[in-house]
């Protein structure tokens, strides 16, 4: 009898937890979508914010472009470092000790809170190197933010490559670099790009690294790497935090979520392609 009660309680717990999570997700998307869809039109997407206080009228075009540019710089900066580190760990590093040391460092980096990264970017890039609040400072800070994510994913893919392909290539006298570029990287290409796009999504949604290093309340579409930018997450924070316009805030949140959705779909398609090609 006791066993039956336990069994019943256990199953209720499982079903409840699944139900709650599904409801929360549906609610999150439904809430943003229903409230945001009304404020999105051509003008909102394609014009600059206007009015006093700024943002109460007009659109979010500079913020969309700013976010995309920040994401681009972050991805370029961080994928160069992350892919090299992954290649080093998988192909060149012979000592187990160094490998586990690098893993420990990367675990720690993934744990550094994003606001501390923002502080670091502010102290080093904005003030010390004199980049100012700019696209470049924000992009690099975001790059550091997503570095551990890309590195872990890329390393995993590189490790999954069939070892026999590599050894047979070496046995044929093909050089290491040639093997890497002509055999290994083409196999992993879809995976690596999918990791980078996913990380780009994280970078685009992150507000705390750029709050001190890049984002401002209003700026036109940036002309150079050293001009300050608007970004969607920061714009959303300002609109709600300062209580400027709730309607525009819903719209901004919806645009941000839709952009992230597109990025995620790209990454998923790449994943499916990879599975088909194997």
């Amino acid at each position: 009898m006791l066993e039956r009660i336990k069994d019943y309680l256990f199953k209720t717990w499982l079903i409840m937890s699944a139900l709650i999570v599904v409801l929360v997700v549906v609610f999150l998307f439904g809430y943003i979508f229903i409230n945001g869809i009304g404020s999105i039109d051509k003008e909102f997407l394609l014009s600059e914010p206007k009015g006093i206080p700024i943002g109460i009228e007009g659109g979010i075009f500079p913020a969309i472009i700013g976010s995309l540019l920040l994401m681009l710089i972050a991805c370029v900066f961080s994928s160069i470092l992350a892919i090299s580190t992954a290649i080093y760990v998988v192909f060149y590093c012979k000592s187990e000790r160094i490998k586990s040391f690098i893993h420990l460092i990367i675990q720690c980096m993934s744990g550094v809170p994003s606001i501390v990264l923002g502080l670091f970017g502010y102290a080093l890039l904005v003030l010390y190197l004199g980049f100012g609040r700019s696209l470049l400072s924000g992009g690099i800070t975001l790059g550091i933010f997503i570095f551990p994510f890309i590195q872990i994913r890329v390393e995993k893919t590189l490790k999954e490559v069939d070892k026999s392909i590599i050894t047979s290539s070496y046995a044929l006298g093909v050089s290491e670099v040639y093997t890497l570029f002509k055999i290994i990287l083409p196999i992993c290409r879809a995976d690596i790009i999918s990791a980078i796009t996913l990380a780009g999504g994280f970078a685009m949604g992150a507000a705390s690294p750029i709050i001190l290093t890049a984002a401002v309340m209003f700026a036109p579409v940036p002309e150079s790497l050293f001009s300050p930018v608007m970004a969607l997450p920061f714009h959303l924070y300002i609109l709600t935090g300062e209580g400027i316009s709730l309607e525009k805030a819903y719209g901004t949140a919806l645009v941000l979520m839709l952009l992230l959705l597109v990025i995620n779909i790209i990454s998923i398609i790449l994943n499916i392609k990879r599975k088909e090609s194997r």
Partner: protein
Amino acid sequence: MLNIGEKLFKWIIKLLTFLSILLLAFIVIFIFNESFVFFKEVPIWKFIMGRSWNPLGPAENLSIFPIILGTIYVSIVGICISLPLGVGIAVILSTYTKDRVKSFIRGIIDVLAGIPSVVYGFIGLLVVVKFFEVRFSFAAGESVLAGGIVLSVMVLPFIVSTCAESMDKIYEEYSQASQALGVSKSYMIRNIILPASKRSIIASLVLALGRGMGETMATMMVIGNAPIMPKLFGKTQTIPSLIALEMGMAEVGSLHYHGLFAAGFVLMIMLLLVNVLIYFIKAKMDI
């Protein structure tokens, strides 16, 4: 000729790896360097244990004990809500579901992980905080509990993925044997799988703690940001939100500026410790 290219490539890879490893040292050194000025004025234990935060007063008035407590409190409330849900989902994922449903639930969890923290904060402010204000007629709905509720949704994906990973393995190991003995599935999960995955549940808990403590935007928007001793239904302040809110106002080079770096330094050290802990728990799990 070809050999030179090979060597060059190897050196570039080594150099870039070295640079990425150095990044962490750079971060630690830079934050420490900026907060060192402050620690010369105020000893570190006084900074941690003192109870007032008043940037306008003398140096002794800058201390962050209530804020540290607030940071930990909000995360723990979040984890308390999230852990039962997360472990439940992990059990469902690794034992009760097959391909289609499994990838559907996984997709939902991935979606949760992908929502930006500022959107969580936004919804938290408009729904959770407002709910408290309207339903329970609080003067202000911004509270530790609101922060915990928002955080619980944010850390859920980490808990689920960490737990499900090891539960998968344990289930595969024991499922045939226990089926052959005619033991019911739910009995097996309760008496074999859950006890055996204790370690991964603890790992996920620590991971979630780290995530929660470092979270800025979502908590900042719903906790009210008052540097007082935290109570479940009262306003509070976390270190990340303190930095994000006040850094813009602090004059560069002033004591306030260095004090904020010092707060960042304390937060970073706490989180580095948490992550070293995670690393060792994970390393033990693999063996």
